[in-house]
């Protein structure tokens, strides 16, 4: 190793390499240094480094310290910018006048105060770094702006939804009162249209209100002890007339493992089932729609998990549509007239499940029906005292 031509090796480095004697005279400068300073070897040999460096007093002090302490020293770009001023072309993308450098000063062992200096060009790193930071800050600003826009939009929607619901309840209430009076057949028909259109509008507004609450993080769950079978029955009853008209079987299968009571938000639980049953009944033209409920005790976690499936023999949902089905404003490929709605129902269902410590998923194949499965949880402690009674 000792016989290898060290100078030739140092010449191949992509960094600057210089050797100083104990009086700071340059005894060697590699090709990189000569090229960047536009000097010949004869011009630089024996020259004192003080004549080349910027901030010479500080540098001389550092060199003396390195020599005295026999310590390797680092001179960072951030704190020194550069060691030797090497002018960059005016057209240089960096905008810096001089090449930005990082320098390491290493005392050479077995010599009396000789130093090896390595100079690394970090101009492109500095430029990349500052551009990266600028982009990062732009992204941060954009994110903050977008978040505040979402909050403002949600607040606006919530307010508007509330303002629409109030007069709409008035319209529906008076339509109900009007229906108790004596009306001609055409008047009864007009009134039915007013009531069904009003109810549809009210439902759409409710979904928008729920969604805007979700986006604004204001949707809260209000758990209470409720009777599962009764809650399911109340929802099923809504769909019996429509199922009868379409000659669909409505099957309810509640396993023995299901306790009488559950401790969760009853209204939100009913809302999920209503939404899923509504879709199932709406899109199924023959066969059946089934709701199946099981309960599993997760003793280790101290939780009871209620598993609910809403299965139908409808048209099914394509794999492509399944990927986005729980995303907001997405409707499956069924005809627009049948699928009238905001496209928010399943998004709301998923969020409600998550708020009730659960999740929702879909199994479906085109032409073979759909099976929406969801679960919610409650603390076992809340229902065990009831079970033991």
């Amino acid at each position, binding site marked *: 190793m000792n016989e290898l031509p060290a100078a030739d090796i140092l010449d191949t480095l992509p960094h600057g390499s210089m050797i100083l004697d104990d009086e700071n005279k340059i005894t060697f400068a590699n090709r990189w240094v000569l090229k960047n300073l536009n000097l010949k070897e004869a011009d630089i040999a024996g020259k004192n480094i003080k004549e080349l460096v910027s901030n010479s007093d500080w540098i001389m002090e550092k060199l003396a310290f390195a020599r005295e302490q026999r*310590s390797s020293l680092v*001179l960072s770009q*951030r*704190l020194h910018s550069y060691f030797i001023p090497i002018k960059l072309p005016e057209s240089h993308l960096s905008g810096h006048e001089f090449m930005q450098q*990082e320098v390491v000063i290493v005392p050479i062992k077995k010599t009396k105060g000789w130093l090896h200096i390595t100079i690394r060009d*970090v101009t492109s*790193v500095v430029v990349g770094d500052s551009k990266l930071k600028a982009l990062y800050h732009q992204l941060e600003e954009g994110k903050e702006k977008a978040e505040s826009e979402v909050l403002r939009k949600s607040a606006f929607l919530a307010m508007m939804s509330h303002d629409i619901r109030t007069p709409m309840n008035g319209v529906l209430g008076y339509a109900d009162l009007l229906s108790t009076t004596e009306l001609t057949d055409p008047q009864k028909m007009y009134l039915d249209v007013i009531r069904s259109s009003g109810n549809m509008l009210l439902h759409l507004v409710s979904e928008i209100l729920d969604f805007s609450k979700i986006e604004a993080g204001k949707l809260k769950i209000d758990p209470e002890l409720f009777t599962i079978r009764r809650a399911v029955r109340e929802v099923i009853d809504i769909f019996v007339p429509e199922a009868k008209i379409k000659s669909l079987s409505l099957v309810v299968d509640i396993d023995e493992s299901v306790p009488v009571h559950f401790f969760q938000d009853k209204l939100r639980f009913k809302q999920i089932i209503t939404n899923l049953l509504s879709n199932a009944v709406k899109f199924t033209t023959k066969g059946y729609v089934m709701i199946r409920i099981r309960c599993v005790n997760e003793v280790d976690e101290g939780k009871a998990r209620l598993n609910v499936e809403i299965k139908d023999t409808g048209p099914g949902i394509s794999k492509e549509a399944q990927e986005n089905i729980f995303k907001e404003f997405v409707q499956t490929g069924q005809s627009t007239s049948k699928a009238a709605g905001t496209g928010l129902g399943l998004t709301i269902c998923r969020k409600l499940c998550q708020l009730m410590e659960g999740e929702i998923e879909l199994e479906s194949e085109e032409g073979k029906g759909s099976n929406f499965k969801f679960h919610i949880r409650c603390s076992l402690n809340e229902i065990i005292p009831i079970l033991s009674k």
Partner: protein
Amino acid sequence: MSTGLHIDESLKEAFIEIANIGIGKAADSLSRLAQKHVQISVPTIKFAQNESEEIEMLKNLEPSVLIEQEFTDDINGTGCLILNSNGALKLAQLLLGGKHASDLFGEIEQGAILELGNIMICGLIGNLANMLDFELYYNVPEIQLSGVNKIDSLQKSEGSLFAILECQLSIDVEEVSGSLIISMSTEDFMKVIERVHSKYFSNQ
């Protein structure tokens, strides 16, 4: 493992005094470099053997930045400055001033922290060497963004002893905590203690 390592209180005080002078010089150097008022508090010192609680505690300082510099010759060991990542970033920002302030710890900030660690380690170990007449040679300092790995490898070296100096760096009015660690073999550590004793306590 922390049992069996008993350092006389007066020797411990002498060690702190030497360390204090060293890091005082480092603070002065930093002040001039950053053109800001830099103060370093008088360190507290703990001596520990590997696998001791003190070393385990350092490993919990995550995510951390570690600057290390090995020294050889009369005594051999490693000097380390360990900072938590937020502290390192804050320090870089304080040193560089508001115009460079950023919450990203890029390569350029790492360079500045490497230089800062270099100055502090050299201040500490260099002063120790000067005052105790040791001749040392220092390798090129290195920065590690996952400092815990280095502590692990130092810990695995058989018979290592650690002098852990906890101190506060204040730049202008802001404070950042850091730990300076000197790791040496038991044999070299005893050389230091003996030298402290012979130079400063032999007449008592």
